[in-house]
């Protein structure tokens, strides 16, 4: 194959394009911090998950320790079943509890995990019993109105 002086320029162009891709992947999408080992998965049932979505963060004391893998509906207990993948580096006691929390006033919802006191740790396939549902604004308001009405009656 004959060499030509455009070789070097085309090579530079392809290199530049490749560099741009690497830059986007590393600097803007953070490829390095992607967790390639899957971690261990546990399940939990919630009465109401509110606006929780797959890929939402699982945080403990504000630190991301895992992700929500998938969410489905259990038609035996009529609850939402959430599959979590927790980072292998972190172990939590078996009686840890989960809460659905909101990041700021209008932010994304995430799961907060609070450590319990059990000496045994959660293992892959375990399910977490103590859960607290998402706060639904409508329920809060109706509760508030109901309490108001009850107050009014008791004063009469």
């Amino acid at each position, binding site marked *: *194959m004959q060499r030509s002086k455009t070789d070097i320029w085309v090579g530079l162009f392809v290199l530049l394009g490749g560099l*741009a891709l690497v830059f986007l992947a590393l*600097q803007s999408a953070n490829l390095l911090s992607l967790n390639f080992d899957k971690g261990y998965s546990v399940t939990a049932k919630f009465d109401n998950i509110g606006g929780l979505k797959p890929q939402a963060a699982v945080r403990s004391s504000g630190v991301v320790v895992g992700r929500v893998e998938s969410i489905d509906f259990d038609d035996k207990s009529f609850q939402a079943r959430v599959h979590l993948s927790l980072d292998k580096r972190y172990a939590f006691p078996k009686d840890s509890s989960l809460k659905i929390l909101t990041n700021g006033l209008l932010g994304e919802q995430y799961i907060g995990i609070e450590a319990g006191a059990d000496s045994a740790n959660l293992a892959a396939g375990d399910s977490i019993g103590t859960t607290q549902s998402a706060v639904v604004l409508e329920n809060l308001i109706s509760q508030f109105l109901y309490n108001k009405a009850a107050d009014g009656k008791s004063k009469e």
Partner: protein
Amino acid sequence: MISFLRPSNIGLAVRQALADMGFAARLFFKLLLSLGPTLRRPGLLREQVHFMGNYSLAIIAVSGVFVGFVMGLQYYYGLQRFGAADSVGLLISLSLVREFGPVLTALLFTGRAGTSLTAEIGLMKAGEQLSAMEMMAVDPIQRILAPRFWGSVIAMPLLAAVFSAVGVLGGWVVGVKMLGIDSGAFWSQMQGGVDVVRDLGNGILKSLVFGFAVSFIALLQGYLALPTPEGVARATTRTVVMASLTVLGLDFVLTALMFSI
């Protein structure tokens, strides 16, 4: 008075449109099948990547910087009302990688390289060079059209990546250096919100599809051009109009398919 509405004329127009469509489909499959022979002659391919990639680099990079600048200013203006100015980086990166990078690159590429493809093929046809090649038992589709087609398909994703990367840097200059957003928040918000496969991967896929569409339309218009100066001029115009509309339409369809959740 309304002689152009005579049934025979309408019939002729419909038949011509159908024949063009059939020819277009045949040409497209022929170009797709020509990948193997094109790769076996890398010299031709390299020349086209050089012509369409390297020479488009300047306009792509400069446009990317300015789009990044403007997005930095506008997003900051909108977001600081809600005290969310830190998300400027995330929004810039998402909109560039998902939409603006592939779409604007395709539109600029149409104007910069698509037109020259159409004009080149159209003039070759007008000068009967393509017929002359056929006489010499050289397939003009394989020798002339295929390297140009695959050259653009290769160049487009690379150009789109350059556009997005340069745009993010432009947004960083305006957001962090001029408007005083915290540099750490700018990058960390971006890294928290942009997914390698879902956002970046789909963006690259988009620009690949645009590469196929733009170069195919440009080559087809050149090939169908009437062999007169006016015919070539019209074909070039049609390339810009059709390719731009196709890119925008395809972008909507692809966005709906990729990011529907």
